[in-house]
């Protein structure tokens, strides 16, 4: 018989079939990525992948995905930050337009950071139940990272026995107001003329086309 036909018809008794092969495909692929010889660990799977076109297609796809994506993506992790906060200054400045004010409180309380892999993509500063500063890196917004930071801050405040969490922002900052209210915060009070040059804020500061002058306080019952 011709070798091609013979090899098509020849069956390998070690072949474990599709279910068993697919059940360990992730482990098989990781062995390849780790430079191991998976066929030695799983000879029946190797026999199956040689004979089953669709499972081999899945194997090649999974290997490709794991090779190209594992190195780039880690899970989102929120954790306390114990390093030098100067490293996070750019993120703090996303939420604070006054360098003078920022210098006055940057070292206060606890800072949580959101990481994806090695990259810090957001932070939240919490002191005595008040969110002093919070920001998510531009390119990572809209993916629930801010909400994750709030959820961790809530857990932290509750753990400290607090019954209320507060935060203040500019009345002009519509996006931030929407965000906090979506997270359950409610408006509490308005502080007029909080953002003035006398306090280190630039003149003619605007947000969403609205002059930044007044501050709104919000709170969340824990």
């Amino acid at each position, binding site marked *: *018989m*011709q*070798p*091609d*036909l*013979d090899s*098509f*018809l*020849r*069956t390998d008794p070690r*072949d474990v*079939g*599709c*279910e068993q092969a*697919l059940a*360990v*495909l*992730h*482990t098989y*692929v*990781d062995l390849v*990525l780790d430079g191991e010889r998976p066929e030695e660990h799983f000879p029946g799977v190797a026999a199956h992948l040689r*004979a*089953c*076109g*669709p*499972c081999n*297609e*899945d194997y090649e*796809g*999974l290997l*490709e*995905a*794991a090779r*190209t*994506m*594992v190195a780039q*993506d*880690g*899970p*989102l*992790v*929120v954790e306390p930050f114990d390093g030098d906060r100067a490293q996070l200054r750019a993120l703090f400045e996303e939420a604070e337009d006054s360098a003078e004010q920022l210098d006055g409180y940057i070292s206060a309380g606890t800072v949580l950071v959101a990481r*994806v892999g090695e990259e810090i993509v957001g932070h939240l500063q919490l002191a005595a139940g008040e969110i002093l500063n919070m920001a998510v890196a531009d390119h990572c917004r809209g*993916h*629930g*990272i801010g*909400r*994750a*930071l709030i*959820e*961790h801050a*809530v*857990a932290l405040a509750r753990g400290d026995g607090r019954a209320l969490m507060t935060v203040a922002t500019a009345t002009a900052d519509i996006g931030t107001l929407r965000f906090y209210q979506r997270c359950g915060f409610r408006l509490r009070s308005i502080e007029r003329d909080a953002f003035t040059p006398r306090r280190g804020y630039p003149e003619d500061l605007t947000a969403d086309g609205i002059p930044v002058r007044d501050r709104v306080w919000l709170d969340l019952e824990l």
Partner: protein
Amino acid sequence: MDSDSARWVAALAPGAPGRDAAITRLHELLLRVARSELRRRRSRWGIDGPELEDLAHHAASDALLALLAKLEQFRGESRFTTWAYRFVVLEVSMKLGRHFWRTAGAHENADEDWELVPDRIGMSPHARAEWHDLVGELARAVDEDLTPHQRRVFGAIVLRGTPLDALVAELDTTRGAIYKAMFDARRKLRQALVASGYAT
């Protein structure tokens, strides 16, 4: 379990702070794998553009649901992401199998053609010269030695060129069941060729 995998599992656990964000992030990753995998296979399945995007979204969403339902089964035998990507790669296969019938109805009624078998099993040009000697014996073995189910599966895959996953969708069965039918058919056909002196 490696630390990244442990973080994923902790972040996705029911009630974990930030679970929604972890789910959103995982969905993004699954969607990227689905798109990339569909692009890799698109020429063979004839899909592109909005159709590909639609399949990618469905595959990612279904993979996410399946994964979350089985989260407790992850024991760290591999990286979490490799385990997760497996869900979406398998979903892509299933979706393509079903999609085949929506776009390639003509294949359903295609005639069984022994002349196309050399292409389908990847036979070399050299070997094709001897092919005609064997066809008669092989066709006889298919008719006489296979069960009706094996004959149907062999006919669809080898003689009509139906992709295995498309046959899985058509017969509403599993890939393993179809593969087993083909495996048994191949073994019987080889035995028949050995018995008739065409193989050793």
